[in-house]
C-alpha cells in the first residue's frame, strides 16, 4: 500500500472528480470532495514523513522504467508542496459547503466540485511528477479547470477575468512547452533527472539558454511575477470565494515550485545563473513586485482585489528567496510557500464568510462586521498580522529567514525593500481592520441566519495554524532546510 502512495496522491482527486459527475447531487458532490481532499491530505502527510529526512521516493507509473516511462519523484520540496496543496484543500472543504451553495447555481454545483477536484489533480500532478512533459500536461489540466471555475463567479465580470487569465495562462503554458520542446530536441529525453544529466554536455548552446528563458518566463506568468501579474487581481477578485481562497493559497505556490524545480534541478543553478543576469533580473522584479503590489493594494476598495494585489507583493518575497541562490534563501522561499498559503487562505476564507453574509466584498460591505461577526473578524485580524509578519505568526518566521538570507549576501537595498513592503502592508491591512471594527455598519441587506459552524471551523483552523507555525516553526523549518540542501546539492 505505502509503495503506491505517490500514485494515490493524484488518482484520489481525479477519480473523485469523476464520481462527482456521477453523483450529481450538491450534497453528495460536497461529501465526495471533502473525503477526497482529506484522503489526499493524509497521503501527502505520509509522503512528507517518508521524505523529510532527505530520502527520495521514485515511482514508476504503470511499471515503465524511467527515463522511458513516466516517473513520479518525490523529495523534501515536492512533498512539502503536496502537503500545502492538499492540506489547503482539506482545510477549506468544510467551508465550501455553504459558500458554494450560496454562490453557484444549484444545477451546476456538482460540476463545480468536479472541476475543483480536477484543478487539484493538476496542481498535485505538477508537484509530484519527475517528467517534464507530464508536468506540462498536468499544468494544462489545472489551468483549463481553473479558467472554468473562475468563470463561474457570481459577478459577470468573472467572464472577462477568466478570459484574460485564459489568454495569459495559455501563453505561459505554451512558453513552458516550447522550453521543454527545445530541451527534448537537444537531449532526446523528458525525464527531469535524465535531463539534468544530459544538459551539461550541451552547455553554452543557445538552444539551452533559450529553453531556460522560455521556461522562466512561462513559469513567471503562472506565478504572476511583476510585470506578468496583470491577470491575477481580477481572476481572484471575481472568482467564487472558495476558488479565490484555494487558488491564492495553492496555484501560485505550485507555479513557484515549477520555476524552482526547473532552474535548480533541471538546469542546475551553477549553469542557470552562471555569469548571466537571471539572478539579478529576478531580484529586481521581485523587489518591484513587493513595493508596487503593496502600493496598489493600498488604493483598493474591493477587499478581494486588495488581497490579490497583496499576493503579488508576497510573490515578490517568494521569488526573492529563490533568486539568492543560497540555502538560506531557498529555505526562506520554501517556508513562505507554506506561510503565505496559510495567511492568505485564512484571509480569503474570512472574507468568504463575509461575502456569504453580506453578498459583497467591498470595504463598505465590511463596515462594522468585526462587532457583529466577532469570530470572523478576529480570524481576519490574525491572518492580517501574519501577512504583515508580526511575531508569533507564521509570516514573521518567513520575514526573519528572508531578511537573514538577504543580509547574508549583504544586499541591503533588497532588505530595505522587504522592510518597506511590510510597512506598506500595515497600511492596507490597517484600512481593512479599521473598517471592520470602527465603521458604522452599512444599511445593506444581510443574511439573518448565523454563520455556519463548518465555515467558521475552516477559518479558525487556518487562523490557529498561523499562530502555531509562528510559535513553533522548527518542524517546517527543518523540512525547508532539507529541501534547500537538496536543491543546491543538485539531487533531483
Amino acid at each position, binding site marked *: 500500500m505505502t509503495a503506491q502512495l505517490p500514485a494515490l496522491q493524484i488518482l484520489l482527486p481525479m477519480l473523485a472528480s469523476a464520481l462527482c459527475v456521477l453523483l450529481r447531487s450538491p450534497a453528495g458532490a460536497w461529501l465526495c470532495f471533502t473525503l477526497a481532499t482529506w484522503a489526499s491530505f493524509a497521503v501527502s502527510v505520509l509522503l512528507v514523513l517518508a521524505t523529510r529526512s532527505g530520502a527520495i521516493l521514485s515511482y514508476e507509473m504503470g511499471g515503465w522504467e524511467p527515463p522511458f516511462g513516466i516517473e513520479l519523484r518525490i523529495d523534501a520540496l515536492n512533498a512539502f508542496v503536496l502537503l500545502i496543496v492538499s492540506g489547503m484543500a482539506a482545510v477549506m472543504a468544510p467551508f465550501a459547503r455553504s459558500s458554494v451553495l450560496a454562490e453557484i447555481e444549484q444545477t451546476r454545483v456538482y460540476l463545480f466540485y468536479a472541476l475543483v477536484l480536477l484543478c487539484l489533480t493538476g496542481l498535485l500532478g505538477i508537484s509530484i511528477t519527475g517528467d517534464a512533459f507530464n508536468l506540462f500536461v498536468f499544468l494544462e489540466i489545472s489551468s483549463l479547470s481553473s479558467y472554468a471555475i473562475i468563470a463561474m463567479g457570481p459577478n459577470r465580470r468573472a467572464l472577462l477575468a477568466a478570459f484574460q487569465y485564459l489568454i495569459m495562462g495559455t501563453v505561459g503554458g505554451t512558453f513552458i512547452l516550447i522550453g521543454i520542446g527545445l530541451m527534448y530536441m537537444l537531449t532526446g529525453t523528458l525525464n527531469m533527472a535524465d535531463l539534468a544529466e544530459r544538459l551539461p554536455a550541451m552547455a553554452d548552446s543557445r538552444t539551452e539558454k533559450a529553453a531556460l528563458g522560455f521556461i522562466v518566463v512561462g513559469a513567471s506568468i503562472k506565478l504572476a511575477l511583476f510585470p506578468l501579474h*496583470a491577470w491575477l487581481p481580477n481572476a481572484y477578485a471575481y472568482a467564487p470565494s472558495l476558488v479565490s481562497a484555494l487558488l491564492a493559497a495553492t496555484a501560485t505556490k505550485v507555479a513557484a515550485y515549477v520555476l524552482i524545480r526547473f532552474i535548480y534541478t533541471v538546469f542546475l543553478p551553477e549553469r542557470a545563473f552562471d555569469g548571466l543576469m537571471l539572478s539579478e533580473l529576478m531580484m529586481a522584479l521581485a523587489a518591484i513586485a513587493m513595493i508596487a503590489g503593496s502600493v496598489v493594494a493600498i488604493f*483598493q476598495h474591493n477587499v478581494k*482585489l486588495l488581497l490579490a494585489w497583496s499576493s503579488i507583493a508576497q510573490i515578490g518575497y517568494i521569488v526573492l528567496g529563490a533568486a539568492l541562490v543560497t540555502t538560506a534563501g531557498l529555505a526562506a522561499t520554501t517556508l513562505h510557500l507554506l506561510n503565505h498559503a496559510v495567511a492568505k487562505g485564512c484571509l480569503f476564507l474570512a472574507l468568504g464568510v463575509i461575502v456569504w453574509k453580506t453578498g459583497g466584498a467591498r470595504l463598505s460591505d465590511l463596515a462594522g462586521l468585526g462587532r457583529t461577526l466577532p469570530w470572523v473578524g478576529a480570524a481576519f485580524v490574525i491572518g492580517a498580522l501574519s501577512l504583515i509578519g508580526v511575531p508569533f505568526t507564521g509570516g514573521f518566521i518567513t520575514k526573519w529567514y528572508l531578511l537573514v538570507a538577504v543580509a547574508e549576501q549583504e544586499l541591503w537595498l533588497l532588505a530595505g525593500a522587504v522592510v518597506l513592503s511590510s510597512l506598506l502592508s500595515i497600511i492596507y491591512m490597517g484600512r481593512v481592520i479599521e473598517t471592520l471594527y470602527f465603521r458604522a455598519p452599512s444599511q445593506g441587506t444581510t443574511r439573518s441566519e448565523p454563520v455556519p459552524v463548518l465555515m467558521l471551523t475552516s477559518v479558525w483552523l487556518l487562523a490557529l495554524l498561523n499562530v502555531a507555525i509562528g510559535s513553533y516553526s522548527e518542524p517546517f523549518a527543518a523540512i525547508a532546510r532539507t529541501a534547500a540542501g537538496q536543491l543546491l546539492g543538485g539531487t533531483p
Partner: protein
Amino acid sequence: MLAWLANPAWLLIGAGLLLPLLPYRLRQGLLVLAPLLAAGWLWTMPQPTVVTAMALGYELTPLRLDGLAFVFALIFLIAAMLAGLYMLHLRSRMEPASALVYAGAAVAAVLAGDLITLFVYWELTALASALIILANGPQTYRVTLRYLLIQVSSGLLLMAGAIVHIRATGSAAFNELGLDAAGGWLIFAAFGIKAAFPLLHNWLQDAYPAASPSGTVVLSAFTTKLAIYALARSYAGTDILIPIGAVMTAFPIFYAVIENDLRRVLAYSLNNQLGFMVVGVGIGSELALNGTAAHAFTHILYKALLFMSMGAVLYRVGTVNGSQLGGLYRSMPYTTVFCIIGAASISAFPLFSGFVSKSLILSAVGYEGAWLVWLVLIFASAGVFHHSGIKIPFFAFFAHDSGIRCQEAPGNMLLAMGLTAAACIGIGCAPGLLYGLLPYPVDYAPYTGSHILSQMHLLLFSALAFTVLMRTGIYPPELRSTNLDFDWVYRRWAPAVIERGMSGLAAARNGLHQSLNQAARRHVQGPRGKRVESILAGHAWTTGSMVLAVTLVLVLYLLSYFS
C-alpha cells in the same frame, strides 16, 4: 515552549488575552491581580536567573534577570497595577486587554537576554500600545496608524541590526554593544526612535494625548522607559548620548510652555525627563546608571500621577485645554492635591521622589566635570518646574475660574492616584527604599545642605520668573492653536514634495504615452489625473498590454543571455 511561557510577563500577556472572554467583575480582578502576582513572582526569583531555549536555529535567552532588569521589570509591574486600578471603571474590553498585553510585553522585553527575543516583544509592545490608542474611538485611526508605522519601523531597524550583528559576531546576546559593534548604529537608531530622541520624538506628543484618559496613563509608563533600559543595557557610556540627552531636556520646554493641551504639555515634559535618563546612560558610571534606573522608577510614578490627574479632569470635564479650564480645585479637591504632589515630584522638591533620583544624575554629571551639560540640565530642571510644576496645576485647578462645576474623580481613580502619590512621597522621604533596589551599590546621600539649598534656589527663582511673567502679561497665554514641531516635515512638507514628484512623474509618463500613441496614431483617453488614478487602482491593463509585457520580459531574458 515552556521556557518562553514560564515568565512573570506571560502572566500579564495571558491575562490580557483571556480578559475579553470574561465577565466584568472578573475582568476587574484580573486587571489588578495579574500585575500583583507577577510582581510577587519576580520578587521571589533569584538573581541572576538565566533561562535559555532554542528557536529560529539559535540559542535564545527568553529570561535573564539581573539587577538592572529587576528594577525596570518591577516598576513596570507596579505601574501596570496602578494603571489597572485607574481603569477599573472601564466597561470596554479592548483597552484593559491591550493594556495588560502591552505591560506584559514591556516586562518580557526587559527580561529578554538576546536581541531576537527583545525584538519579538519590542514589536508586541508596538502593537498592543497602538490598540490602546485606537480603543479611544475611530477618530484616533490616523494617529494610531502614524504611531504604529513609526513604532514598527523602530522594530524593523532593531531586527535588521540584530541580523547584521548576529551574522558578524555569531552571538545574539543582548548585552553591551556600543556604536562600533556590527549593526550598532541600526540598533541605536531603533532604540532612539522609541526613546524619542530629538527629531525622532514627534510620535510621542502626537499619539499620547490622543488616547483615552486611562490609555495615556498606560502609554506613558512603558515604551520610552523600555528604550531607556535598552540603551542602558547596550550603550552605557556612549558619549554621543550626553549631547543628545542634553538637547532632549532643553528643547521640549519651549514647546511645553506654549502648548495649550495640558496632556500634550505632559508629553513634552515626558520627553524632557527622558533627556535626564539619556544623559545618565551616556555618562555610564555606576552612579549615573543607578541615577538613570532610579529616575526611570520615580519618573514612571509621578508622570503616571500627573497623567492620572489630567485624565480625571478630561474624564469629568471633557477637555484638558488650558484655555478652557481653571478653578477646578473647588470641584476636584483630591485630584488637585494629587496633581500638586505629582508636580512637586517632577519638579524635584526635597521630600518628593524626583529629588532623590535626579540628584543622582546631576551629581554623576558633576563628577564627570561636564559643566556645560550640567548647566543645561539645571536650566531644564527650572523649566520642568515651570511647565509641569506650576503650569499644569495652575491652569487646570486655579487661574481664573472657568465656572466649570463637576464631580470629583471616580473612586477607583482617586485610589490609584492616592497610592501613586503615597509612593512619590514615600520614596522622597525614605530614599533608601529606592536605592536598595538599584543595580549597583549606592553610597549616596541626597539630603545634604548644598543639594537642598541649590535646588530650592532653583525652584524659587523659577517660580519668581513665572509670577513676574504672569503679572506683566508676557507669559504666553493659553490659546487654541497648533504648534509646529518637527513632524511638520513628514506630515506636510514631505507629502507635498512627493505629490509634486508623483504628478511630475505622471506628466512624464503621460508625455511618453502620448508620443508613443501618436506614433501609433491613437489618442489617450481621459485626463491625466484619471490615468494616474487608474494605474494606482490597478486596472489599466488590457489583454494586449499583458501580452506585450510577456514579450518584453522574454526579450529582456534573452538579451541578458546573448549579450
